[in-house]
């Protein structure tokens, strides 16, 4: 299915957000946070969230900031 991933078009056969994170190489302890369609998606919810065509996914990590 087609999704948006961090602002870019992407294709995935992952069924859930957790599956997508796994495909991207993030293990369950990875230091990341997620949002779907502008709403925060907690780590605990990722396995239950069924990806839908057109979903807009954000995956973020710690970064320098001011």
């Amino acid at each position: 299915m087609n999704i948006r991933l961090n602002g870019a078009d992407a294709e995935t056969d992952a069924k859930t957000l957790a599956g997508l994170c796994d495909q991207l190489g993030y293990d369950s302890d990875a230091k990341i946070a997620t949002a779907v369609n502008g709403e925060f998606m907690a780590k605990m919810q990722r396995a239950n969230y069924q990806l839908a065509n057109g979903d807009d996914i954000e995956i973020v990590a710690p970064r320098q900031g001011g």
Partner: protein
Amino acid sequence: MMLEFYGQKVQSRLLMGTALYPSPDILQKAVKASHADIVTISVRREAATTQLGQSAQSGEGFWELIRELNVRLLPNTAGCKSVKEAVTTAKMARELFETNWIKLEVIANDDMLQPDLFGLVEAAKILCDDGFDVFPYTTEDLGAAERLLEVGCKVLMPWGAPIGSARGLNNPFALESMRAYFPDIPLVVDAGVGAPSHAAKAMEMGYDAVLLNTAIAKAGDPVYMAEAFAGAIAAGRSAYKAGVMEPRNMASPSTPVAGTPFFKLD
């Protein structure tokens, strides 16, 4: 009395940003040299995750570096231009960094990176209601400040000047008014500070702390500059507690006049 933010005692009155440093090593050394015990950080997309099939890089390296510093983290919502973006970013930061603290930025425009006060109050209310300890990046506007306190903020962070501008305290009168109007609220000058003298001035006014990033990160020698800011902030704080004398228009001799040799009454 020791400074407290949301019930947490703070030793250093310098809050440091972690961005724009020439290298991770210099960042680490600068934080240590400053003795800051609070640093700001952000959440950002990772380049690798924009394309499926590439292995994830993740911010693990940066995260390890930050953990080694053993400082308290103040995540920001830098760059957010809407209430929704700021709220979602704050929630991602809360999970990632395991803290309720959030430096709330809702930015009005790119030119001045000035706070959108309307969005700021709205986002602050949502986040305070959700259990966040909000550090709002705001202006010296007293009305907006009152709204921020009403919705649950217990710290205010007015700008000195636009972020990264190094202009110092653009509106000292307004900053002094704010300090006088909110004598019991922790007030932090955040952004626009360029030189240690700017930070010292804010502290002499009675501000509780100064938050800065670029002034140290972009200095010729960031580690040395971190020391300079720590010294300036400590000096400004001492001066505030000591009480700075009022300026006057005419000279007043410091050496005793009585007993001056060759003195004659005109």
